[in-house]
């Protein structure tokens, strides 16, 4: 499957991935409108970690052996048979946060609006995930694995 590869040596910590991710998952999908007009403010599903000059953006790794799928008591977290992505069925999610508890990458978050989780969906349907497309330094790349 196509996965996002993180190249920490090129991450400059601008956090534009977070911005573009949030906007991609906003109502308007417009940078200015999403940030200046929408409430609640859009939440990114990618996170930039930083320590001194080391930084990287991390989002769901879409693990082969995904603990979040095992831990999901409602069956909301599932693997998309076509893309291989780990996706959450928001209709099924009740916000028990078991997936947050077991994800060793810490890349599943709580949604702001509803009690459902918020995680990377690889922007399926788009040509490329927003974070990959907009990373100015190609620190994130979409690659077949």
């Amino acid at each position, binding site marked *: 499957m196509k996965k996002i590869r993180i190249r920490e040596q090129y991450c400059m910590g601008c956090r534009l991935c977070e*911005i573009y991710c949030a906007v991609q998952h906003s109502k308007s999908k417009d940078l200015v409108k999403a940030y200046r007009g929408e409430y609640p403010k859009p939440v990114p599903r990618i996170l930039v970690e930083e320590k001194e000059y080391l930084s990287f953006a991390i989002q769901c790794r879409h693990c082969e052996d995904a603990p979040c799928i095992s831990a999901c008591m409602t069956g909301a977290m599932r693997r998309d048979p076509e893309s291989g992505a780990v996706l959450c069925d928001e209709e099924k999610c009740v916000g028990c946060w078991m997936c947050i508890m077991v994800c060793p990458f810490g890349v599943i978050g709580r949604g702001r609006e509803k009690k459902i989780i918020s995680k990377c969906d690889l922007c399926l349907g788009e040509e490329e995930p927003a974070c990959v497309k907009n990373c100015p330094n190609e620190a994130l790349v979409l690659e077949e694995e």
Partner: protein
Amino acid sequence: MVKSSPPSGFLIDRDDERCIRCQACVRMCSNDVHAYDPEEDIIVSDSSKCVGCHFCEAICPTSALTVRHNPSQYRENFNWASEVINDIKTQAGSGGVILTGMGCDKPYPIYWDHIVLNASQVTNPSIDPLREPMELETFIGRKPDKIEIENFAEPKLATEISPQLELKTPIMFSAMSYGSISYNASLALARAASEFGTFWNTGEGGLHKDFYRYGPHTVVQVASGRFGVTREYLNVGGAIEIKIGQGAKPGIGGHLPGEKVTGPISETRMIPEGTDALSPAPHHDIYSIEDLRQLIYALKEATRYEKPVGVKIAAVHNVAPIASGIVRAGADFVAIDGIRGGTGAAPKVIRDNVGIPIEMAIAVVDSRLREEGIRNQASIIAAGGFKKSSDVIKAIALGADAVYIATAALVAMGCTICQKCYTGKCNWGIATQDPYLTKRLNPEIATRRLKNLLKAWSLEIKEMMGGMGINAIESLRGNREQLRGVGLNEVELKMLGIKPAGEAW
């Protein structure tokens, strides 16, 4: 008195309607220009710290930022221009030499822009480079006076050919030391040169072990500081260049401040970490042309006569006889760096006032070597402010074998020529060793862009050549009939060895 320091040259306009407070500008500016005020939820920009590198502008996702010239100026005065006043203020504060980076930015005539090219009309067909072969292959090195072929059963080359650098395009990357530029920037130059089939140049900073694999496409420099010069270094490169001078600072040596001498740089240069790397103004073993000859042959001996050994000089008044002497001293190529050549750090007064334009230098050196019948004994590489493919092709028609580009390569990697290289705070990750900044230059992207630049210029050169009905670069080299001067006086035309526009063959 009120301390009077020069105002910033720039103003930052922030379109508040578009600013989404993402703070990318805040995080990215190495000069701490932008700051977020959480209480007011606004980003304030302190223009006085801005160097005008435009990185924030490039990174702003909503194009909310515009960096523009500060319109606040002193009373208009052609004589006492703002720059003059500001320099005085700066020096009155510091008591020191004003440092700067990149090449001379003073409005000396740019002769390239006064030279026009020829094209075929009717009497000979122009050639479409997309359909017909168009050859840019260039060889740098000593050529024999004549070729001898033994004709027994099989014809066989009887003349020994001196070592040559083979270039796919007559464009090389000029010397930029690892130290003055970052590891990633060096890597990109090395990779792009190797992949495209041309050469990059180590500058005077030695060659990082990681780059040995690019050795066959590397010109290794031997400068007055002799940083990183070892037998291994000399032998790993494709050619050796003795650096006598640099266009941006003829007559003076290099200075890499200790802060830039980080671990790997100290290792590469073979000097202690954190110490200033100072190259003397002259080579202390070269006080005359015969000393240069000794060094040339010492280097040839050290590399078993397997590599071309060249000499780089700044273009100065006496450039033609100097070049002739260098060729006669045994150099396989002469690199000439004109007044607009760049630098990582130079005293402004020298950068802007010493040396001559490269156009003149090429013309007089080529003519001089031809007059002396020794033009074939060495190649001429021209450097210093080549900004576009037309500059390159004009240089070749004037008589250069190839050109060195450096500033243009940096611009391809993001540089906006803010001239602050010497501060080590390059936001584009080029002229810096700060790990926060160096990682901003992804060498993969930079390599791609450098190769694109070489490809684009080469294509344009081919287009122009095709227009002239020439399909091999050697038919253009020194072919000044393809050039005409526009707006040049007789002396300039004579110096350049070209006819005025309107004059036929």
